[in-house]
């Protein structure tokens, strides 16, 4: 695993990097809604736009700006606890859910329609513009010259050092997949950052962070072992600002093919 840039974290205290230094502005704005042709999509751009506002005002407080704050639910990528169809969505919003945890919302018909449109647009109306190529060619590229399979595992094949992608098509939008391939450093989720640890008995452990709290850190190491370390047992704890993968050198058509393949990966076949 190639580790390029390391940020030193003070041992046994918090890494108090200024959040702004490498943060990306995620602005959830109604005005980002792009025109979409009604003929191509079920919902109009006006509905998405209106729904964005309804979402901000009625839903974002609990579900969060990206729709991922309730455990087990990620609205922007269509991950729900019970909902499948838009009718289900309509019912949950109108009647509440989760044994009272989510109250019922009395929205007007066009507002309800809009908020469903906004959710179905993946909170990212530009997502539809992402070019999606041929999954068969994409699979070949993924496993071959794209070098994806050098680190990523799919359906039981490949290493586990990078996140397993067997379900990636179900939990990422095309736009998010594209961003990860083209600009992995920006797209890498902070929890997934590579780490390098040195223990008191001089063992150096390199791996990927899975979870962290005040006193411990959980990783998968380069030997694919799940390990939980107490920070008091470490003499050094470094977190990389960048993933080990490089921006791709594939052509735009090839990237589109890989995205097409990734979108077919939706868990168990």
């Amino acid at each position, binding site marked *: 695993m190639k580790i390029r840039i390391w940020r030193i974290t003070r041992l046994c205290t918090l890494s108090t990097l200024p959040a702004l230094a490498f943060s990306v502005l*995620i602005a959830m704005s109604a005005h980002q809604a792009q025109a979409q042709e009604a003929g191509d999509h079920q919902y109009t751009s006006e509905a998405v736009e209106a729904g964005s506002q309804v979402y901000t005002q009625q839903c974002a407080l609990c579900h969060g700006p990206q729709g991922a704050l309730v455990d087990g639910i990620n609205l922007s990528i269509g991950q729900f606890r019970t909902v499948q169809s838009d009718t289900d969505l309509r019912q949950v919003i109108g009647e509440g859910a989760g044994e009272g945890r989510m109250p019922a919302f009395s929205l007007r018909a066009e507002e309800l329609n809009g908020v469903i449109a906004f959710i179905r647009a993946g909170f990212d109306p530009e997502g539809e513009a992402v070019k999606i190529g041929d999954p068969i060619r994409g699979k070949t590229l993924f496993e071959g010259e794209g070098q994806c399979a050098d680190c990523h595992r799919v359906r039981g094949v490949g290493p586990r050092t990078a996140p397993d992608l067997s379900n990636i098509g179900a939990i990422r939008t095309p736009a998010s997949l594209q961003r990860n391939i083209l600009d992995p450093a920006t797209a890498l989720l902070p929890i997934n950052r590579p780490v390098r640890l040195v223990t008191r008995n001089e063992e150096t452990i390199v791996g990927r962070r899975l979870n962290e709290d005040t006193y411990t850190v959980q990783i998968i190491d380069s030997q694919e072992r799940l390990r939980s370390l107490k920070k008091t047992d470490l003499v050094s704890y470094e977190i990389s600002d960048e993933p080990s993968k490089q921006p791709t050198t594939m052509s735009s058509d090839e990237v589109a093919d890989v995205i097409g393949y990734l979108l077919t990966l939706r868990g168990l076949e």
Partner: protein
Amino acid sequence: MKLVNKFGTIGIALCICLAATNTSAQVPYERILNAADEPENWLTYNGGYKSQRYSQLDQITPENVSDLKLQWTLQNQVFGAWQSNPIVVDGIMYITERPNSVMAVDAITGRVFWKYRHVPAENALICCGANNRGVAVLDDKVFMGTLDARLIALDRITGNALWDVEVGDVDLAYSVTMAPLVIKDKVIVGVGGGEFGIRGYVAAYDAETGEEAWKTYTIPGPGEPNHDSWEGDDWEHGGAPVWITGSFDPKLNLTYWGVGNPGPDWNAGQRPGDNLYSDSVIALDADSGELKWYFQFTPNDAYDYDAVQVPVLADIVWRGTPRKIMMWANRNGYFYVLDRVTGEFLEGKPYVTVNWSSGLDENGRPIPTPQPEGMPTFPGNQGGTNWYPPSFSPRTGLFYFSAWQDYATIYRPEESEYQPGRAFLGGGFSVLAPAPGAPTIGIGRTNPINNWTNEVGFASLKAMDPQTGEEVWSYDQFDVSDSGMLTTASDLLFTGGREGYFHAIDARSGDLLWNVNLGGQIVMAPVTFSVDGVQYVSVISGHALSTFALPN
């Protein structure tokens, strides 16, 4: 043989019933007034009228705290953040459960004597979780506010309802989530609904009958002083809710309440003026509800900086002069010391990064520095701190609370129109994320994986010196914390956080003495009490209330 056993069991049950009846002492006002003198009990939400959450108990010490053993656990039967604060009276704990149930629990074994269930009206509207933060007690009664804005009195021994009155109109999104405060013969509550365009108030009810004794609006109506801090009819739906239990100074006969945000939340331009008494502390005559003074922390608030923190009272020598003070770490990022006789501003300094204001003037009024559109405002929407109860230890002279460090929000104000029973927020907000689509901090924690990481904010338990207004020490956690504080006469500080660790910290040095992973977010303060000479500490983590004591 079977028959004998049956009779035997019944015989024992009868004996226990008789014993319980004989020991069910009343809780007159005088006991609550002198709650500090009976540290074996926890008689009010904040452990006494001064709201210090400080206990005289000292059996558990810095030396033996690591010997604490789990005595019992009570599992919540309802999912969702459990933000309830236990009340303990003579070995019986009263605890609420979502949405509006009350249980009487044996404080030694954790077994439940009775459970009362109130089913709130279906249209009850709560912005941020169907929370209930606990009960109040007086004499032989228990009092609970409800999500559908009712106040209910129960018989403390049987759990049967005695009266049930309306506090606010549920159709207009009024609600009660706080634990009531009993003063003399009255039960006092405030109302939530600041995200739905209510007009807030504090109201007092006769403890015997439930009849309303007084009601003081937190937004003055036409003809009342400071009505001109609003324009046009903005005052009618200006929010200013009261959703956290207040304090009381019996000598001054003043009861103090923190008032929440003006509405709509994020569009200050839509409601010109200072918007009194939103984001203020108000001092009310406890008998009449008459407003005696106010101090506004955040005029014309655009950031949802509710002043719903607990007013913490202390009588100390402040910079050489004995003073009756009030300490307040506000959601707006400033720590304040006020004179609670007059409301005079004594000191105020930022305790986290603050950029919505460049400082406070000599009267404590903030100098506004609104950030350009699209730029982050510090502290963020959940505040530098929030409703989590702080503690003041008279022994250390320090004020302890949970702060959120390096946490910001980008606000996007929008014109919004009031519609009854609907959110009235005035726009939206977004957050700084370390990567596109990365999760960011929410109101609560529902995932065992901290996938937002400390890059979007983290917890800092701060010990503040009211003499200087400055931090003496801090204890940081990787995730943010909504935990309250408890201090004891042995200079222990008990607290928690979203990670689920229950911490015992040296209240003088800030050093960690002991902790245990209880596995669920701790979103209320621990309490302590004693029964038969044994000191207990109770804390709620996730869906479990755990009670610890030293091994005998």
